[in-house]
C-alpha cells in the first residue's frame, strides 16, 4: 500500500529540489560516516555518550531525504543507504528539533571534515524548508515577522529608534561640549553610513554612543540612516533566502539613496556575515559602495592617527571570543586581536581560537528559541570551561548575539566575568584632545532628586523576586511604587492608584498579562496609562501585538538589568537623563 504524505511533507520535498545546489549535493553525497567531525561539536562534548548530537547523525536526518528522493542508490534500494522519506507533520516537527534545537550552524564540524562536507550549509537549507511550511520555533516566527513587517528583528519602531538617537546625541553634545558631536541622521554623501543591530537601540545604546564618540574624535564624515538601519538578518538563521534578500536589499538601497561611500557594520557576527558576505547573493544585488566591519574602521583610525588611544585606561585582563560568523565564515579574527592589543593592557588568548573557536551556543538564532534553552545552557559548558581557563575578568566579543549568549552562560555557570565589545574598550581608551572642544560646557549641577521623582509606577509580576528587584530600582530613582502579583489585582490597583506607568508580566496565574493588557486598553479609565511589557517569554510577543488594541508603549525581555529597566522607563515617561558632572 502506498503511504500517504501530508501536504507540508510533500511541499518540503518539492521545494528541496529547488533549493539544492551543486555544493550542497556534493556535501550530501560525500559523507563517508568516518566520524572525524564528531568531537568538533560542542553539543557532543557537553552530552557525552549520546550519539544523536553527532554532526553526521544530525546531517543524516536531512541526508536520508536527499538519498530517498534525489540520489540513485537511495531511490532503488533505500534501506541499503538508510534513505527514508518523510510523511507526517510529526516527523517534520522532529526534524525541526534537530535543525533548530541541536545545531547552531556554527560550521565547526565543516572545517573538521576531511571530505569537506559543509553540514551547516544544508542544515540552513533544511531550516528554510521547514520555515516555508510554517514549522519553526515560535521565537523564529516572531522575529521573522518583525523583520518582514517592521523592518528590524526586534520590532523597534522608527520613532523609538530616532528618539534614542536624539537622546544619545544630546548626551554626547553635552558631554563633549561640541555640537559637531551630534549623531548625523540621513546625511547625504557621507563617507560612512553606520548600520547597527536593533539590540543596540533596545538594550545597549552605549555601543551607539561609543561609536559616535569614536567617529567624532576621528573627524569622520558619517551618518546613520533613519530607515533601513538594521544590519542583522534573521534570514541567515531561519534559512529563508527571501527574507535574507529583502532585509539586505533594504539596507543596501538606503546606503545608495544616501549616496554613502562606505557601509560600516557595527559589531555583530551574523549581521556582518549577512550584510557583508551573503546578503548580495540572497538579494541578487551588485553594490556601488564598499562595506567593512566597524572593527576594521576603528583599527584603521588608530593606524592612520585619526584617533589616539591610551591602553592604560583598560587595565583589567580581557580575553576575546571569536564569533563563529565573523571568524569561521568571514575571516575576521586577526583584526580584533590587533585592535584589542592597542587598547587594553592585559590580553589573554582563549584556546582554541580564531576559526577553530567554539560557538557561544547562542548562535544560529538560538537565543530566540526559548524551548531549547536548557539544552543550550547545558551545551554551553564547553564555552564556560574555555572562558574560565583564561583567568580574564572580561570577555570581549564582536557580536551582539555572542554578548547575549555569553552573558547567559556566565550567569548560569557563575563565572563572574563581564562581557564587553571592542567599541566599548576603544571608546574607554579614546583620548579626545582638549583643543577639540569648541564650546565650553556649562556644568549642570549634580541633581540630588531621582529622575523618576513624582512618578507612580505599578509593577505587575507573579515572581516576588522580580517585583522586589524592579521596585527597589524604581524607588532608588525616586518613583513611588505600587505592586500587584496577579492579573485581577493588577486591574484593581491600577484603577485605584492611577499610576503613570505599568510594567506588566505576561505569564501570570489567573488572568494573564495578555488579558490584563487588553482589559486596560479597553477601560476608559486606564487606556491612556503607558504599559511596558516585561516578559521572560519573547515568543509570546505576537500574542500582545496581534490584539486589536493599541500596542504597548514598551516591550522588554527578561532577564533585565537595572540599566535596561531604567532606560525603558525613562524613555516611556519621556524623561531626559540628567547629566551629572
Amino acid at each position, binding site marked *: 500500500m502506498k503511504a500517504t504524505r501530508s501536504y507540508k511533507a510533500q511541499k518540503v520535498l518539492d521545494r528541496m529540489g529547488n533549493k*539544492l*545546489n*551543486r*555544493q*550542497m*549535493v*556534493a*556535501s550530501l553525497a*560525500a*559523507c*563517508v*560516516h*568516518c*566520524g*572525524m567531525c564528531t*568531537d*568538533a561539536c560542542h553539543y557532543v562534548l557537553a552530552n557525552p*555518550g549520546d*550519539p*544523536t548530537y*553527532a554532526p*553526521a*547523525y544530525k546531517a*543524516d536526518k536531512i541526508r536520508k531525504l536527499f538519498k530517498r528522493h534525489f540520489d*540513485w*542508490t537511495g531511490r532503488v534500494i533505500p*534501506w*541499503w*543507504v*538508510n534513505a527514508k522519506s518523510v510523511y507526517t507533520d510529526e516527523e517534520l516537527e522532529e526534524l525541526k528539533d534537530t535543525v533548530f534545537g541541536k545545531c547552531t550552524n556554527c560550521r565547526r564540524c*565543516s*572545517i*573538521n571534515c*576531511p*571530505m*569537506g*562536507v*559543509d553540514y551547516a550549509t544544508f542544515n540552513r537549507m533544511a531550516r528554510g524548508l521547514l520555515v516555508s511550511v510554517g514549522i519553526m520555533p515560535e521565537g523564529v516566527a516572531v522575529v521573522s515577522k518583525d523583520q518582514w513587517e517592521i523592518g528590524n528583528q526586534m520590532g523597534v519602531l522608527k520613532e523609538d529608534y530616532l528618539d534614542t538617537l536624539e537622546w544619545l546625541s544630546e548626551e554626547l553634545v553635552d558631554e563633549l561640549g561640541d555640537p559637531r558631536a551630534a549623531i548625523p541622521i540621513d546625511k547625504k554623501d557621507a563617507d560612512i553610513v553606520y548600520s547597527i543591530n536593533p539590540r543596540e537601540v533596545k538594550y545597549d545604546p552605549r555601543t551607539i554612543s561609543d561609536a559616535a564618540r569614536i567617529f567624532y574624535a576621528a573627524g569622520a564624515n558619517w551618518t546613520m540612516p533613519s530607515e533601513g538601519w538594521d544590519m542583522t538578518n534573521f534570514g541567515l538563521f531561519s534559512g529563508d533566502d527571501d527574507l535574507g534578500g529583502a532585509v539586505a536589499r533594504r539596507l543596501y538601497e538606503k546606503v545608495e539613496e544616501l549616496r554613502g561611500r562606505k557601509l560600516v557594520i557595527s559589531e555583530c557576527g551574523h549581521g556582518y556575515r549577512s550584510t*557583508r*558576505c*551573503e*546578503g548580495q*547573493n540572497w538579494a541578487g544585488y551588485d553594490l556601488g559602495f564598499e*562595506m567593512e566591519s566597524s572593527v576594521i574602521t576603528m583599527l584603521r583610525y588608530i593606524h592612520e592617527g585619526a584617533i589616539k588611544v591610551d591602553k592604560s585606561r583598560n587595565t583589567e585582563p580581557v580575553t576575546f571570543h571569536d564569533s563563529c560568523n565573523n*571568524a*569561521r*565564515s568571514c*575571516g*575576521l579574527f*586577526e583584526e580584533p586581536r590587533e585592535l584589542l592589543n592597542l587598547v587594553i593592557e592585559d590580553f589573554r588568548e582563549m*584556546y*582554541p*581560537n*580564531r*576559526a*577553530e573557536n567554539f560557538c557561544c551556543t547562542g548562535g544560529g538564532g538560538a537565543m530566540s528559541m526559548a524551548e531549547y534553552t536548557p539544552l543550550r545552557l547545558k551545551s554551553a559548558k564547553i564555552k564556560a*570551561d*574555555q572562558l*574560565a*581557563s583564561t583567568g580574564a575578568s572580561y570577555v570581549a566579543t564582536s557580536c551582539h548575539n555572542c554578548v547575549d549568549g555569553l552573558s547567559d552562560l556566565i550567569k548560569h555557570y557563575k563565572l563572574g566575568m563581564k562581557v564587553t565589545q571592542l567599541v566599548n574598550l576603544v571608546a574607554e581608551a579614546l583620548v579626545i584632545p582638549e583643543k577639540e572642544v569648541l564650546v565650553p560646557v556649562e556644568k549642570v549641577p549634580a541633581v540630588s532628586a531621582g529622575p523618576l521623582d513624582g512618578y507612580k509606577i505599578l509593577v505587575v509580576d507573579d515572581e516576588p523576586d522580580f517585583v522586589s528587584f524592579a521596585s527597589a530600582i524604581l524607588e532608588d530613582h525616586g518613583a513611588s511604587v505600587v505592586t500587584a502579583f496577579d492579573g485581577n489585582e493588577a486591574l484593581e490597583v491600577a484603577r485605584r492608584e492611577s499610576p503613570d506607568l505599568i510594567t506588566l508580566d505576561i505569564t501570570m496565574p489567573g488572568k494573564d498579562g495578555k488579558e490584563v493588557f487588553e482589559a486596560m486598553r479597553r477601560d476608559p479609565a486606564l487606556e491612556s496609562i503607558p504599559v511596558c511589557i516585561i516578559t521572560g517569554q519573547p515568543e509570546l510577543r505576537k500574542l500582545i501585538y496581534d490584539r486589536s488594541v493599541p500596542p504597548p508603549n514598551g516591550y522588554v525581555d527578561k532577564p533585565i538589568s537595572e540599566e535596561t529597566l531604567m532606560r525603558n522607563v525613562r524613555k516611556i515617561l519621556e524623561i531626559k537623563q540628567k547629566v551629572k558632572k
Partner: protein
Amino acid sequence: MSHLLHFVEHTLQEVALLIMAIVYTGRLIWLMHYKAGKERQADTGNGNTSPGKGIIYSWFNVAMPWAMESSRRKIFLYFQFVIFHLGVVAAIGLSFVIPYGPHLLNSETLVLLLQVVIGLAFLVGLYRIIRRVSNSYMRAISSPDDYFSLVLLTVWFFFAFWAVPNNTAKGETILLIYFFMTAFFLIYVPFSKISHYLYYPFTRYYLGKTLGKRGVYPVKHYPREVRG
C-alpha cells in the same frame, strides 16, 4: 594460466572498468546539472586569502594533518586513514600490474612493498570494522552500505595480499578470487559510499572557494592544542 584466469584478468576487468566509467560519467553529469551558487560580494580577509588559494589549500588539506583539529587530536586515526588509502591504491595498481606488466613483480622489493602496504591496510580494515561495530557514535551513523563496503575492502585486501606474488604454480584460486572481487568492486563502487573520492574534489573545491573568498582559507595560524 587457465582460460578462466585470463578472462577475469583481462576481459572481466575491462568490462568492469567500462561499466564504472559509464556510471561515473553519469554521476558527474548528475552532479553538474545542479547549479553552482554565485558569489557577488567582494572578498573578505587579508591578502593572504583568496578563493584560488582557498581551493588549493582545501584540496591539499588532507595531506596536512596539522591543518584540522580533528586530525591533530586523532593522529592515530589520521595515519590509519593514510595507510588504508595507500592500500587501496596498491591493490588497484596490482590489478593492472598483473595483467599488463607482470614482469614488474619479478622485483622482490616491489612485491615486499606491496605486501607490506596491503597487509597493513588489511589490519587497518580489521580495526575499522571493530571501531564501527563497537563505538556507539559510529554505529549510530552507519548504514548497511557502510558495513558492507568496509568488509568488502578488508576481504579484498586479504586476497590482494596473497595475490601480489602472482604465483600460479601453487594454484589460481587466490588470483581468481582477487580478480573477481576487483571486478565486483569496480562495478559496485559507483553505487556505494566508496564513490566518495569522486565527490571529494567537488566538496573540497566549494568549501575552499567559499572559505577562501571569506578570508578563512588558507589558515595561517593554528591554535595551541589546549581545550579548556
